[in-house]
């Protein structure tokens, strides 16, 4: 039994860490398609994490979560973005506001912060939950970091989706999260994805680019 516990803990930790590493991978990529692939990989790892939690928590509804993550986030969203990028002929280099080296350093600092923060705060909770929460928070912060250090709208959307992955990771690690909440989160992300797609088209039609610079200069109060 002890051994079983230790094993399940290690595997959960491993998968969570994989999601986090994929988050760093997102920050590291310089090509748009590589970003999308890394995102798909992160979603895959998330689905695996959910499935593993379903197994060790004896909570069959988490399998449904895993399936949703796999179908929507690992397949549908990356394919759709892929298609959009090709369809719109978007410039395929990632334009950074902060150099990649600095981004990585800041990312490491954020991970350190979330570990420092979560571990003492959740001193009473089970070890499994604590580690996962620290990992999940790191992923959320990395997603935010991605949103603020990238110019291109597509990379911002990917950052947003990565952020949402972190939330989902936190949700599956805590015991007793109802399925309804996860499904609603998944659907809201899908809706957001659709909206972003429509907006991409509209922005593109108007400005011939998805670089947000052009959007900013177009506001009525600026010339």
């Amino acid at each position: 039994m002890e051994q079983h516990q230790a094993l399940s803990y290690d595997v959960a930790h491993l998968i969570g860490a994989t999601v986090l590493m994929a988050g760093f991978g997102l920050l590291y990529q310089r090509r748009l398609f590589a970003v999308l692939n890394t995102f798909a990989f992160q979603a895959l790892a998330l689905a695996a994490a959910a499935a593993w939690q379903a197994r060790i928590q004896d909570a069959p509804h988490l399998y449904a979560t895993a399936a949703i993550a796999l179908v929507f986030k690992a397949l549908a969203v990356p394919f759709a973005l892929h298609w959009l990028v090709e369809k719109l002929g978007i410039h395929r280099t990632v334009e950074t506001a902060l150099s990649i080296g600095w981004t990585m350093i800041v990312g490491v600092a954020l991970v350190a912060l979330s570990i420092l923060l979560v571990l003492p705060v959740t001193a009473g909770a089970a070890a499994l939950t604590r580690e996962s929460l620290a990992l999940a928070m790191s992923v959320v912060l990395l997603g935010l970091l991605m949103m603020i250090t990238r110019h291109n709208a597509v990379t911002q959307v990917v950052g947003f989706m990565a952020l949402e992955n972190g939330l989902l990771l936190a949700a599956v690690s805590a015991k007793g999260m109802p399925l309804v909440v996860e499904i609603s989160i998944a659907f809201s992300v899908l809706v957001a994805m659709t909206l972003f797609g429509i907006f991409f088209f509209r922005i593109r039609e108007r400005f011939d680019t998805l670089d947000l610079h052009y959007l900013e200069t177009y506001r009525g109060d600026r010339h």
Partner: protein
Amino acid sequence: MLIAAAFATLPALSLFALLFGRRAWSHAVVYLGCLGASLCLLAGGLVHLGGHPGAAPTLVLPFGLPWVEAHFRLDNLSALFMVIVDLSAAAASAFGIAYGSHVPEPRRVTPFFPLFLFGMNGVLVADDAFMFLVAWEFMSLASWALVLADHTRAENRKAAMVYLTMAGFGTFCLLPCFGLMAGPGGDYTFAAMRVHELAPTAGFLVVLLVLLGAGSKAGLVPLHAWLPLAHPAAPSHVSALMSGVMTKVALYGLIRVLFDLHGEVGWQWGAAMMVVGGVTAVLGVLYAVLQDDLKVLLAYSTVENIGVAVIGLGLALAFKDSGEPALAALALVAGLYHALNHSIFKSLLFLGTGAILTATGEKSLNALGGLLNRMPWTGAAFLVGAAAISALPPLNGFVSEWLIFQSLFQGPSLPHWAMKFGVPVVGALLALAAALAAACFVRAYGVAFLGRPRSEAARGAVEVPAVMRLTLVVLAALCVLLGAMPVVVTDSLSGVIAPLIGVHFPVSADLGWPWLSPVGATRGSYSGTVLVMVGALMFGAAILAVHGLGVRTLRRAAAWDCGHVEDNPASQYTGDSFAQPLRRVFAATPFRARETVEMPEPGDLGPARHTVHLIDPVWQGLYVSLGRLVDAIADQVNRLQFLTVRRYLLMMFATLVLLLLVVAVRQP
């Protein structure tokens, strides 16, 4: 019962004025109703003070916030201030019966006048913080609407704006003040606040906030800036109430909090209030002596008198905290006596100005002159008011300032060296203010009522209607009465403040009636009664002698013109020329007064020009720079409106990380 009925009448009158404002007679009806209501309230206050001074009937009504009931209570202090408020309110209402139709737009005044009275009386009887603040705001907003009554003039709109800002600031300070006194329990009744012990920091903040909140309403320097703008902008009978009475309601708030609700206020606050009071008195009267507009002059003089009363309050605080209850009682009696006196003679002077306005349409000193012959009743009453406010015996202003001086002379008996040395300095400031006040009103009266008329309007002035005259005469008689019977007043005042200080201090103990001898028979005593009687006797004898033995015929002759045959009234002493020596001596430094003379070239027939430049140090130094600071900050913050999407996200991110860092650092 009577009081409750009077309270209910006032909003009804306001409604009546709204409904029937088109009819000309409705205004007189409303003012008549206000007169009745304020006489009822006055009677209620007097009966309470005379009949059962110790009692404090309370009343709880089930309205207000759902979980807070409305508490009312009439104790000695409330009753005293009710007398102060409603005495002047009755006078202003009576004056309004005739004057109300002379204001430019009576329909903008009449509905708010009863509400103003309602608010002021409501503050006095409120027994919980909620009702107090509601009534306080009622008072502020109603008077704001009255300031805005003549809204077509730009300076009135500016005055109303400044007033509204300062009123908002005052209430903004009072709100946390009561919150701190209520404590974490959140019981906002005054009864709970009395027993609630304040922590040192909270106690400090309460005193500071009430000084800012009530002090801004009372007009303490440097929070006085709105007062000389707003008081003159309102119609004269409203100015009389704002200046004479609303500032007293603010003093009531100060006394209620500092002596009653807040248990122990340190002597340092007493010292601070004395310094503020002294500076307020001197600066107020310095402003006043330089003014040309009679109403502005009176408003600045209100600032001075509030300073005088606050000196008394501060001294009472210092004595109380130093374990000298008898001297504290003396100082508080003196301060309250001065508040009562000021409400009467300031109402008299403002109503007198209203009479001048009715007769001439002018309130600038340089357009008046020679009114005494044309308006003898107004002139005589105004003279009594001017003498009283200049603290001339035997009138009431003298008694209260004399009492304040008597208590200031006891300052060296305080144990703290700062006070031993500081109190005489405040005494010197007060003496300077009193002397300047006398000069100020010699100037105001002399220029307005004596000499020859300086304008056609002043030349054609006729005496005002009987109702106005009667009001002025009654107020002037009160000035004499309160000065002639000081012992009656001080005895009832020491009864009023006995619960606040803890001792009943008879000001006339040593020599007995009718002598005031606050600090022993040998140290100083005064009897207005004897003075008036002797004065009347000698005056009567002199008149008898002059008229009985002298020539009976009245002969009018031209004034001696120093050899110049110059028939230009402008060659008389003007207000500006009278003020010039004082301006050169006192105003050169604080107001940076500069005079420039433009002499025409020889051969040029143009007139020489003499211009005076004054800079208001408080307005320029405090308010304008504060406004600039706010503008600068607003400019900086405005940049946030034009950031990029990514920057906004960055700000959110940075805030999040910062908060997380705070949590990470602060946890054990």
